[in-house]
């Protein structure tokens, strides 16, 4: 088929209408001491120590920032182990045994609205930094860095598009807690001194549009608009959200802040709400367990640090007659495939998708051009693939392979089922 095709079958029906289960009391939680951005850490607790919910137990050291590590349950520290992180690497985790007491640390106290009204941008930055909030959509970029921007911002855009197939955790989050989303956005607008907020959702999500507007009617002093933008993939890519919601096109390599817009994921917005209102770090998050190889796909509210294996058991395990399967953390288009299901839910993990393994038969490329037509960054994946095959770096650079966002659409649309994305990824690595 030679055509531009940016609609990906989304399989969201599996979990979209299911109310969120609660799985917030695991026996043990495993808290990552390292992640993709922070390689080193210092741990302030040792085996046998009692910790409280929300207590700072150590610090992760990143390149230009530090992140406090918070305990997500109250209980006893059982030592340090190695477990898989969502990036596919084994990292150190600290194990805390849950005492089911839910005792909050003394730092976790609600802020009255009168106090919040007086907070300045610096206060916001300080709180968010202290609560170690990061981009919860999967980027893991520290939120305080974004909030501390000195550029003049006109509009805050909340990205609630969730364009990856299968995922419904953001969808359920908004449906069940629209008030928190709006309040979080209100706080950020206050922090950045912004008058206008936009919440971008998919056009087909009518229920979200209605619940958000219902809340907005009660907060009519806020200039917040809910925009229903396209249904295609990758609509949730920040640049694409800005383009569709505001009509602002941001060229490759430039920061959106320069153009007066700033984007936050919807989970991050709720994280900001928790941090400002309750002074709470991210201890729970919405999580989707889905895929065609899991018996009962579910949306689950989980504690950060829960083992994915437990969650899969909570969904009644794998489908019986599947011989080979994939365990994917994140979406099926851009997520990471794991070698084991012994993975830990970190702050930035949105979902686990269990797929039956299908070995696609690759046919020779017939140069149909579907990948070129569909590419959201307007590069030519098939030409890059040919350049990789003959190791021609000049051509890879000339074809702007570095622009690739690895959305996976080129491999998805390929008529010959070639894994084009892999070649482009290789090209990106080769030209550094």
């Amino acid at each position, binding site marked *: *088929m*030679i055509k531009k*095709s940016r609609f*990906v079958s989304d399989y969201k029906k599996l979990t979209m209408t299911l109310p969120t289960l609660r799985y917030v009391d695991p026996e043990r939680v495993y808290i990552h001491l390292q992640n993709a951005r922070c390689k080193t850490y210092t741990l302030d607790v040792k085996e046998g120590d009692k910790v409280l919910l929300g207590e700072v137990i150590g610090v992760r050291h990143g390149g230009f920032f530090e992140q406090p590590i918070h305990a997500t349950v109250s209980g006893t520290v059982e030592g340090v182990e190695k477990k898989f992180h969502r990036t596919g690497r084994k990292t150190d985790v600290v194990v805390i045994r849950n005492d089911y007491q839910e005792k909050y640390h003394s730092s976790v106290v609600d802020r009255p609205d009168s106090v919040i009204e007086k907070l300045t941008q610096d206060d916001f930055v300080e709180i968010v930094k202290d609560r170690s909030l990061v981009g919860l959509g999967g980027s893991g970029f520290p939120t305080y860095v974004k909030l501390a921007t000195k550029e003049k911002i006109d509009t805050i855009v909340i990205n609630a598009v969730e364009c990856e*197939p299968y995922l419904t955790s953001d969808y359920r989050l908004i449906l069940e807690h629209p008030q928190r989303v709006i309040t979080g956005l209100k706080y950020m607008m206050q922090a950045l001194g912004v008058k206008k907020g936009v919440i971008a959702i998919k056009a087909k999500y009518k229920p979200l549009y209605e619940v958000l507007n219902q809340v907005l009617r009660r907060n009519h002093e806020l200039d917040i608009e809910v925009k229903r933008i396209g249904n295609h993939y990758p609509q949730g890519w920040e640049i694409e959200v800005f383009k569709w919601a505001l009509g602002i096109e941001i060229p490759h390599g430039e920061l959106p802040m320069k153009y007066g817009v700033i984007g936050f994921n919807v989970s991050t917005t709720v994280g900001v709400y928790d941090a400002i209102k309750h002074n709470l770090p991210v201890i729970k998050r919405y999580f989707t367990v889905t895929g065609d190889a899991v018996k009962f796909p579910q949306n689950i509210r989980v504690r950060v640090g829960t083992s994915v294996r437990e969650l899969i058991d909570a969904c009644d395990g*794998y*489908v019986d007659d*599947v*011989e*080979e*399967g*994939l*365990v*994917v953390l994140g979406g*099926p*288009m*851009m*997520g*990471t*495939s*794991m*070698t*084991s*299901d012994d993975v830990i839910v970190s702050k930035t993990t949105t979902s686990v*998708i269990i*797929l039956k*393994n*299908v070995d*696609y038969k690759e*046919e*020779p*490329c*017939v*140069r*149909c*051009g*579907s990948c*070129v*037509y569909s*590419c959201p960054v*307007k590069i*030519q994946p*098939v*030409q890059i693939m040919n*350049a990789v095959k003959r190791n021609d770096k000049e*051509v890879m650079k*000339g*074809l702007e392979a570095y622009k690739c966002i*690895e959305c*996976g659409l080129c*491999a*998805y*649309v*390929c*008529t*010959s*089922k070639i*894994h084009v*994305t892999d070649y482009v*990824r290789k090209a990106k690595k080769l030209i550094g």
Partner: protein
Amino acid sequence: MKIIRKTSPYLRRPNANATRMMRDVTVALLPVIGLAIYKYQMAAVMIIGVSILGMMATEYIFYQVQDMLNGDKFKLKNKNYSLYNFSTITSALIYSLTLPDGTPWFVVLVGAIAGMFFGKLIFGGLGQNIFNPAAVGRAFIVVAYGTFMTFSVDTVAGSTALGVLNDNPFSADLLSNFALIDLFTGIGIPGSIGEISAIAILIGGLYLTFRTSFEVRIPLTYILTVFGLATVVAIYKDLGIWYPVFHVLSGGLLFGAVFMATDPVTSPITKPSRIYFGFALGVLTFFIRVFGGLPEGVLFSILIMNMFVPTFDYFKWSNSRFTKKSMFIFTIIILLTILLTLVGVYYVG
């Protein structure tokens, strides 16, 4: 469940595969084949049969020999061969339909073997070929066996509608020999077995467009370019609207535009390049027809432009979207082409 590791994305478009695309072309050719068999009966059956047999046997033997040289075990049916994904049968059908009905069987066979071998296999098989295999086969026998390729009317090659056109490109008597409606339906005019009926080809083209199995921009720009240039000539020579319509309907233009120029393997890869490609084909075809020595320009213009496909796709200027600069240059080239046509017509008389 055994957990295995792969790289993203893990999903693929459900109903996309190369076989479907090739099969669609075969289906789209059915009306043309039906009409050819209805009109030429056994002659058409023979030509189509021999060329399918020739091309498939060539490919089959080639890969068996290749496997033998690689030391692989002999397998009568190897599912990995591109033989089984309709690409060969598509080439064979297209090749056979461009032949005149009087072509002897051995000429058909030689062309089929040459087209398959020199047009496709020698480059590395499906997806690697530079030239359209069907066009290579056809060109081979035009050059080697020109006198054998006769039409069923009593005259030699060159008596088709375009033959008349080639002798006297701007004469108003063209219509006295061939009515436009006959050219449209294909009944009662001489020509290659598959190229005579515009309506059958258009049905196939519409089917392909509907199934998105070919790039509709190429035939559209191709035909529009020929139509446009012929219109320019018609206005200059005061010939009337029948002249461009005649150009579009006669000869192998429609067939070549819909089935040969659109072979994705031998056409450029980006949208703008495909439009430029169609335009260049149109210009070449028209120039060969009006100014050249051959009665038919479609075949050679396709072969010539196939050669330039890598040039269209060269990374320094190929762009997947139209830019202001490329539009500007394209407009200038269109204007220059019109000028060139008028100058040519002025000198040809």
